């Protein structure tokens, strides 16, 4: 591989990729079965392709002070097209159509490209068709309710933010639906008869808090179940005992925080795990130890930092930065701008991959987190590249725009909490222990 050029001042890279500098130690006698010279072929391949893109970008920009540009119009066109028509491959997401809607609507929101009234109306109408009489939303009209499309539908409606959109959510049956999925262990199934994992908890807590349908007892002991998922590594796994994973870690931390139970979290351990997930060469994040970089983890991992900052500030604000999150905001943006924009519109996992709405949504969400350092008193921007790259700030706990989250909270918190019939039945049958959560 060619030697790396000296990077201009704005680039945060100062070291060559790890795969370049491998040394060859002498053979050790202890366990001769371990291979001595072990390249990591997949990692080397990714580093090579990322390195090539960086080099290409830098050599093109040598004669002008070229800054990376976010191709807003291209991505907006890609998203708008997708809301109207999806190509054949998307049959695999037929059970996730509210997701497709949320990914597209949120990405447009971050790009500050609003839907027309007609488009918004059509989205609301479609999502209404996905809502079931028994509560919650399914993957499409006629499909059984499932926590994941429920989360996506509620978020999409919150982003649209009209009264029609808010009122599309049947809060009474939603509350029933959430209760029906609660297990004896205080975790949540993804759907009736479905699997239990930490996504269920996050989806349930998120929609309950946003729409103000949470009741005492619905999440009793749930924080303790979440804590069983924090591994020795510091991150959270999908179920107790498995290895820590970015998506699940976000779910765990966000849910704990929304439940005011974040004091249970081993925050220093989580912080150590999270910072180690940013790839020192690529600049993007990996999902788990020793896996490859992926643009979507820009949010799942990157989004941990605003939350961690807020939690740590409650204990020890003096030792925290008043300007930066505890990851390299610059390196992440470089990775996304230079390596993750697809020429035909949309953003991607890593070079060589095709665009999709999921990656477009989460790369942009992560980029927004990297651009905006915000506390209650401060807002410091860190925009890599052209100033027009600036994105709309997102609410790290829900991953909708901050404005959308605030407006929705105001609307729903003024509505009375539904009095669920099933909750009463559950209490009568004594199937859940009530516990006061410390605030």
């Amino acid at each position, binding site marked *: 591989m060619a030697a790396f050029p000296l990077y201009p001042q704005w680039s945060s890279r100062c070291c060559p990729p790890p795969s370049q500098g491998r040394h060859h130690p002498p053979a050790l006698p202890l366990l001769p079965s371990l291979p001595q010279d072990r390249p990591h072929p997949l990692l080397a391949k990714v580093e090579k392709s990322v390195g090539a893109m960086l080099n290409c970008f830098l050599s093109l920009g040598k004669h002008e002070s070229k800054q990376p540009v976010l191709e807003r119009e291209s991505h907006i066109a890609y998203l708008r097209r997708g809301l109207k028509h999806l190509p054949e491959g998307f049959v*695999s997401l037929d059970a*996730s159509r509210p997701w497709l809607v949320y990914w597209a609507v949120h990405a447009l929101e971050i790009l500050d490209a609003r839907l027309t009234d007609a488009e918004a109306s059509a989205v609301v109408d479609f999502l209404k068709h996905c809502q079931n009489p028994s509560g919650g939303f399914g993957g499409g009209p006629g499909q059984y309710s499932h926590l994941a499309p429920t989360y996506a539908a509620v978020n999409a409606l919150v982003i649209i933010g009209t009264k029609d959109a808010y009122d599309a959510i049947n809060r009474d049956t939603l509350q029933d639906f959430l209760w029906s999925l609660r297990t004896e262990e205080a975790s949540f199934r993804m759907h009736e008869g479905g699997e239990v994992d930490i996504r269920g908890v996050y989806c349930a807590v998120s929609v309950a808090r946003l729409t103000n349908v949470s009741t005492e007892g619905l999440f009793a002991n749930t924080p303790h179940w979440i804590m069983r998922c924090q591994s020795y590594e510091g991150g959270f796994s999908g179920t107790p*005992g498995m290895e820590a994973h970015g998506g699940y870690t976000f779910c765990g931390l966000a849910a704990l925080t929304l439940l005011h139970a974040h004091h249970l979290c081993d925050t220093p351990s989580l912080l150590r795990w999270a910072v180690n997930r940013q790839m020192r060469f690529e600049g993007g994040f990996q999902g788990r130890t020793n896996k490859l970089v992926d643009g979507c983890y820009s949010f799942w991992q990157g989004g941990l930092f605003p939350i961690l900052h807020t939690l740590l500030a409650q204990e020890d604000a003096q030792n925290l930065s008043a300007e930066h999150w505890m990851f390299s905001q610059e390196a992440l943006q470089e990775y996304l701008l230079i390596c993750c924009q697809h020429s035909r519109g949309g953003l991607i996992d890593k070079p060589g991959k095709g665009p999709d709405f999921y990656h477009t949504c989460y790369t942009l969400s992560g980029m927004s987190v990297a651009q905006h350092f915000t506390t209650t008193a401060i807002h410091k921007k860190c925009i890599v590249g052209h100033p027009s790259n600036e994105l709309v700030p997102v609410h790290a706990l829900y991953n909708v725009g901050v404005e959308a989250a605030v407006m929705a909270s105001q609307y729903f918190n003024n509505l009375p909490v539904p009095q669920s019939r099933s909750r009463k039945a559950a209490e009568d049958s004594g199937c859940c222990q009530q516990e006061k959560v410390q605030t």
Partner: protein
Amino acid sequence: MSEPCLFYAHCGEQDAQVHGRLKIKTTAEQAAEKKKEREEKQKLYLAGLSKVFEKRASETYDEECLKTTAQLLAANPDATTLWNIRREALLAGKSENEELWSEVLQGELKMIVACLGKNHKSYGAWHHRCWVMENFPNPPWADEVKLCDSYLKLDERNFHCWDYRRFVVAGSKQQPEDELKASQQLIEHNLSNYSAWHYRSKLLPLVHPPPATSPHPVAEQALIKELQMVVEAVFTDPSDQSPWFFLRWLVGRQEKGPR
């Protein structure tokens, strides 16, 4: 009620990725042919779906229902609703005869493999496999361990498979010692396989439990052997994170919170 056609995904070939594939020049004729093919597939898929919903509504859980859900799930293993309906159909037709029921469940295991071929990370498919195993009068656990081995060969970090492996080990007579050997083989094959190191951290306390007074997670002899393995690994590749994170667990530097 207006048809939400704006948002309907059309059926057809499953590969959504265009970037990076070899582009074959298609003539207008070939393009038209492909379009017709896709429209046919879409028709079949939609017809299949409405048939299944019809049967469910009338509780006609017959052979055709099973056959159709199998076809649809093989095309889209993430269709949660179809898995639910399939389970309803299987239970509705459950034979009193244990042998016959076991045969049906064996068929399910094969059917799931077809679905996993489409998406080896499908939540629905793996979850259904757990359900099938839980319904066996005499679950064929040994075969399932082999199945995990083969899927881990495909993707050594597939957490669905790792999770399923733990489920199988818990249900079967597979000994933690054998699992410890398996994890060692995986690490020797690829030092970066963090999932294997992580698995080790769960098995070691079972196979080599520490005395009650020890601050370490494993007994001393085992601890020393594991340390040697870690040292070997970091000398081989100091930049590989896996052994370093495992080491933190091994020397017990993690604060023990509620687990």
